[in-house]
């Protein structure tokens, strides 16, 4: 049969954010894929260089709507290490609770999206209903459902009262019961099994070769979790297990995420029951000494990396954010080949892509070295020119 190009995106119902795939299909089978991820450059890294350490944390929370705490925390961990701050354990525990609640709401949301991609809207509705529980808890703890604003360099901004702790603990059993139901549905619902099993295979060797992170890697049997391998905040004190799976397909990634939900619930419960007494923060100095630091964080989607260089002032000289989606993208192009058109949405969704966080711009010369910078005007002019030329062909 003739090979056809099926354009998916930048506007498409399966996509929550703009990305462009040129899927080369032969009938219903995919033979190749071209990928264009950069549609929403927001210049956050540059903006972060112009704000002091107090004002940069709220900005970094806005890198991603879903892993907002992850970015704030990765940055705070790094800067606190540069300043050699001793953060009180109570603050670390509260940070851990928020981090795990964030992981839970992200994974529940993902499960709903994955079910929606294969047309199973009932599970989509049910998961999003139960996700409200985590959102309510987060709102009660921090005042916000998203972009919690609880972190600052040196600690957290809000304490937990005894009433809040018991109120959160009383809501967990219901959530646990619902998660148990999802395990049953994912393992037993025939149409979901048909659509998830054996789809988007990624062997362990491939997962390592393409540098996948997070649940995508763990579903292929890569035993790798920053929370255990390079512990930050309170993870070294809490009993929990790294979840891995050997299926290596969409089904495996679903199982990993659901079992991580159960682990996260355990961590939250442990933290609430063993919350240390004491202050919730220390006064951080205004300036940070000259240093380069590499801060790693296990975001819901995988390993998140913040590289920062400080120069003795009250702001970072350079902040480089590598989001987990960028690490996982290349594996999608591999796992899509030889699959059916119908499986594109669910394979793409299986890495839980967060596209706008990945967009970066570097202008290179022929030798592959960075050669210039662009102003906003030049960038928008370039964008218009690029779209016009694309529209013509």
């Amino acid at each position, binding site marked *: 049969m003739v090979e056809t190009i099926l354009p998916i995106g930048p506007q498409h119902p*399966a996509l929550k954010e703009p990305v462009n795939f040129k899927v080369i299909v032969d009938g219903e089978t995919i033979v190749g894929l071209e990928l264009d991820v950069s549609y929403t450059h927001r210049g956050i890294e540059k903006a972060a260089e112009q704000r002091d350490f107090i004002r940069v944390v709220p900005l970094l929370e806005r890198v991603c709507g879903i892993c907002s705490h992850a970015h704030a925390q990765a940055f705070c961990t790094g800067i606190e290490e540069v300043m050699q701050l001793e953060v009180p354990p109570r603050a670390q525990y509260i940070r851990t609770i928020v981090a795990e609640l964030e992981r839970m709401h992200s994974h529940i949301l993902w499960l709903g999206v994955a079910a929606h991609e294969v047309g199973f809207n009932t599970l989509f509705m*049910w998961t999003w209903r139960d996700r409200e529980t985590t959102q309510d808890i987060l709102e009660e703890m921090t005042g916000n459902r998203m972009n919690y604003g609880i972190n600052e360099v040196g600690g957290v901004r809000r304490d937990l009262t005894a009433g809040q702790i018991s109120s959160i603990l009383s809501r967990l059993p219901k959530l646990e019961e619902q998660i148990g139901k999802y395990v049953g549905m994912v393992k037993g619902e025939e149409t979901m099994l048909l659509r998830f099993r054996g789809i988007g295979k990624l062997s362990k060797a491939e997962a390592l070769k393409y540098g996948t992170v997070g649940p995508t890697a763990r579903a292929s049997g890569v035993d790798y979790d920053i929370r255990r391998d390079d512990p930050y905040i309170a993870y070294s004190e809490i009993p929990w297990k790294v979840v891995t799976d050997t299926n290596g397909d969409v089904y495996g990634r679903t199982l990993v995420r659901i079992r991580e939900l159960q682990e996260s619930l355990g961590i939250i419960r442990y933290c609430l029951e063993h919350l240390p007494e004491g202050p919730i923060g220390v006064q951080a100095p205004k300036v940070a000494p000259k240093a380069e630091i590499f801060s790693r964080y296990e975001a819901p989607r995988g390993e998140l990396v913040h590289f920062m260089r400080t120069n003795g002032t009250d702001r970072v000289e350079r902040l480089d954010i590598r989001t987990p989606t960028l690490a996982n993208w290349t594996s999608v192009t591999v796992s899509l080949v030889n699959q059916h058109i119908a499986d594109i949405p669910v394979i793409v969704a299986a890495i839980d892509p967060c596209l706008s966080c990945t967009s970066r711009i570097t202008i290179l010369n022929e030798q592959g070295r960075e050669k210039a910078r662009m102003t906003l005007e030049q960038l928008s002019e370039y964008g218009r020119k690029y779209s016009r030329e694309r529209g013509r062909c």
Partner: protein
Amino acid sequence: MDPLLLAVYILIFPGFLFLLTYAFFLQYLDRKIAARMQQRVGPPLLQPFADFIKMLGKEVIDPAGVDRVAFDAAPLIAFAAVMTSFLYIPVVGKSPFAFQGDLVLVLYLLTLPTIALFLLGWFSRNIFATVGGVRAVTMLFIYEVPFFLALLMPALMAGSWSISEIAAWQMEHTWFAILQPIGLVVGLIGLQAKLERQPFDIPEAETELVAGPWTELTGRRLALMHLTMHVMLVAGSGLIAALFLGGPLLPWTISPAWLSGIVGFALFLGKTLAILLVLASIKVATGRIRIDQLNDIGWKYLASATILQVAIVLIMGSWWVSG
């Protein structure tokens, strides 16, 4: 029959006016049931009707390079086909238009919307619509054979090609749902596939193909195609009710005649609603399967089950005749 009465039958009750009202009502009920099962609120009673009116008033957009006449005609033909098919389905008693072979005609008319969808997809000059149209017609080849076989088996056993007579035969003997349970199941699955509802919404898979053949439909074309599907739900469930559940007829006579008519009508409503409930439950309880998986399931299981049903019917038939 009096020509005036016939006109009333076609245009008002149980013809077009009742049919459209009931189609909107079933659509509302379908959406409401699904919504309640999914813990949502669901639409208000007049929502499907309001959607229809709203879409009629929207701009009709012709994609570049599309044959306008064909693009306008396809939804109209599909709509006319399903509206006509309903005239042969018994609603309050036997249909006055019943003739030997109306079963074949109804099955043919109910196939036309799928062909129209394929043509719409093909005419659209849009990659999503084309792939969706090809999927629609691929799916037709998978479910249509078992569906036809399953629905023709009652005819074989009753010895009549008229839907009304098949319904009447069941009054003397027993429901075909009991005599041919496999046929009923295959018929319901086939109807679900015909209506492109989950798990068979493969041609219009939103997350893959935007809206499949429906992608380039706008305004009244879209409104008509939606209405076609709503009416097909009524006609299809009415057909299954008549063939397998005895339709609106009763085994004993009720006098006066008007009371018998009301009871028959109530039976029709009850049976179609029951079928809708089954279809809605299937819709809510499943995800979408892939076209190649449907091919496997359709030919391996549905077709074999139907052949088995045919064999049983033939054996029973010979036993019936000799006995």
